[in-house]
């Protein structure tokens, strides 16, 4: 009996050992599959955007696999992603990244959702020299740490609303404007703020209100009363979806008249749907819009991507999904140019990336951020009670003229 038990234990350990050594040495490429790993927020406070991100990844994996996959050294491979739920928790995300790399043997990572979680994972991927292409961490601080294995397909946060200030100055005949701004105290929004400070300096504009909103704040009445009293030329607000919804609610209730209102996260907040006409004329920064004319052979253009995405997932793709899909296109391109599964060869190929995707041009700067794609601005415009986002800047892709100044509340119906 005793012998039998011993034999059993030995054989189990032998099999486990064999499996472990097998997975760790071949996991990066298993048979015909290139295995990518991602910790993603499927529960917790980022769960809706986490799901948008995952849908974007899955859509691109399906499409690339269906269209022949990735060709390395004459052999065709398919993509496969291992997902873990990070519960919107940075600590958990870092643990899961370790697990993906050490236990699952993943050699290539896709980013999580949000700057905060990307910041938690980047030191891990850097330590193990795992190339990570991320699509949802825009914070500037990600690109100033000298990370060598981090690549972001999106424009950094400080560029989000710079264009808006340029637009305001242009409307003011090239003279500097008076800016009122309110930013939540988190990494992303504070980076957006730095961008505005730069733009203000560059254009000779003056910042007359500079409020920092606490994270738990859902009342901006004091800031808006100050705006009402000081009458700035442009009001800039960034505080994720909560900030966008609170701002529109209270601006409309307090009848705050500003010639120009620029925000972030309008589409994630479904601003035009939740607030309808009250959100009209709001100017919103976005990484992507389906009307842009970029093209690639996998998704065609933005409009086709939006149609296909709608068919598959039942809703219009937010930019979070589009940029996530683009991350896979970048990986495919890098693998094919590297023509190898060596991590450093893939990393070097990523450095040399210069391509166009339906999402925009992609070329990585020295910090890993995408330097080839400008941010776009859209404006909420309504016909009756039907509101939609129309691209107004940069002019190359504008489908509509930028409406300026915003009519006073007393003149709005």
């Amino acid at each position: 009996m005793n012998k039998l038990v011993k034999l059993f234990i030995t054989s189990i350990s032998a099999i486990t050992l064999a499996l472990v050594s097998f997975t760790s040495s071949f996991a990066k490429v298993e048979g015909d599959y290139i295995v990518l790993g991602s910790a993603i927020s499927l529960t917790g406070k980022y769960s809706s955007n986490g799901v948008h991100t995952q849908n974007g990844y899955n859509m691109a994996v399906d499409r690339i696999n269906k269209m022949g996959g990735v060709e390395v050294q004459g052999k065709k491979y398919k993509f496969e992603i291992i997902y873990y739920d990070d519960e919107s928790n940075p600590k958990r995300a870092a643990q899961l990244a370790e697990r993906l790399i050490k236990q699952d043997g993943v050699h290539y990572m896709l980013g999580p959702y949000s700057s905060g979680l990307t910041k938690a994972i980047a030191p891990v991927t850097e330590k193990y020299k795992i190339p990570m292409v991320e699509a949802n961490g825009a914070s500037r601080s990600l690109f100033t740490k000298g990370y060598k294995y981090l690549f972001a397909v999106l424009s950094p946060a400080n560029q989000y609303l710079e264009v808006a200030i340029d637009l305001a100055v242009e409307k003011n005949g090239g003279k500097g404007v008076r800016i009122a701004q309110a930013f939540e105290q988190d990494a992303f929004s504070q980076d957006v703020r730095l961008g505005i400070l730069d733009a203000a300096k560059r254009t000779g504009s003056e910042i007359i209100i500079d409020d920092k909103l606490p994270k738990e704040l859902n009342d901006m009445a004091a800031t808006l009363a100050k705006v009402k009293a000081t009458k700035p030329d442009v009001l800039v607000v960034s505080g994720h979806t909560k900030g966008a919804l609170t701002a529109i609610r209270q601006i409309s209730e307090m009848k705050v008249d500003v010639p120009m209102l620029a925000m972030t996260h309008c589409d994630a907040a479904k601003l035009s749907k939740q607030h309808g006409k009250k959100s009209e004329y709001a100017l919103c920064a976005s990484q992507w819009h389906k009307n842009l004319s970029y093209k690639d052979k996998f998704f065609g253009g933005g409009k086709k991507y939006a149609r296909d995405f709608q068919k598959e997932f039942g809703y219009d793709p937010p930019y979070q999904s589009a940029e996530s899909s683009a991350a896979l296109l970048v990986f495919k391109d890098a693998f094919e140019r590297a023509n190898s599964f060596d991590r450093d060869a893939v990393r070097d190929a990523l450095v040399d990336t210069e391509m166009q995707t339906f999402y925009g041009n992609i070329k990585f700067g020295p910090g890993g951020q995408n330097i080839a794609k400008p941010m776009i601005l859209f404006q909420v415009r309504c016909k009756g009670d039907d509101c939609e986002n129309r691209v107004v800047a940069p002019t190359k892709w504008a489908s509509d003229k930028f409406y300026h100044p915003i009519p006073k509340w007393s003149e709005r119906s």
Partner: protein
Amino acid sequence: MDFLIFKAPMLMVQASLDGILLGILFALIAYGMALQWGVMNIINIAQGDLVILGGYIAYTMYLAGIHPAWGVIVSPIIMYFVGVLLYKLVINKVVDRDLFISILATFGIAIVFQQLMNFIFGADVVVAQSEYGTTMLFDNSVTLPNSKIFSAFISVLYAVALVIYMKKSRLGRAIRATAQNARAAKILGVDTEKVYAATFGINAALCGIAGALISITLTLHPYVGLPYTVRSFMIVIVAGLGNLPAVALSGMGLGLFEEFADYILGTEFRIGAVFMLLVFILVYRRFKLSKKREYLK
């Protein structure tokens, strides 16, 4: 430091009104907390999450095409039963235990509620539209959203009703008796178990009303409950237990203080200033108590 508020007197009026209207709403939540704290000696960390759940009930009605203001009637009824259920499931097991245990238990409830709401209603920030418009005073220089006036009015209405109920009704008297001395009340024939369940239910109902009001004045999100817990905790600390006028005053006072701190010190110090005030009040109270030699260590 910014003294804009002293240059424009209308801002002062605006800040005061904003502070008071919001303070009244917070006072309602705090009163619920004071009530069950006083009666059951439980600090309910899930207070804010009950508020948000109440808000989601109103929001669901709004989605179904019913005006969200009806939430102030429907939400407390549903929330009362949620409260009683919570009591039967969890709270009755921690009532007579250490305060720390009840804090842990309600903290657990808070987490479960957050995740459940996230699961059912999604992680998006949502708002319900009341379309109540705006009241403008002093040639449009002071604007008051009617939804805020409405919510302050409803809060006062319910608070007054509750005070009368506590004074006049049988259950109200039983609740007050239990708060004063649970053992004596039991000996005199009060079913304290029932009283506890009703108290927790009433607290949840008050949270339901506040939540419905928040859905039309502020924003809803499964994870914003904690600030409401903290705020009501502070109001109760300042006002003491079982004293409604004091709770109302301290609610408005904190609301005012917060608004003025925002204007003078800057938005980033808004919450910090309130905490500083709290520390100051606690130190002051201790100092006063030790002077009277009532403080035994």
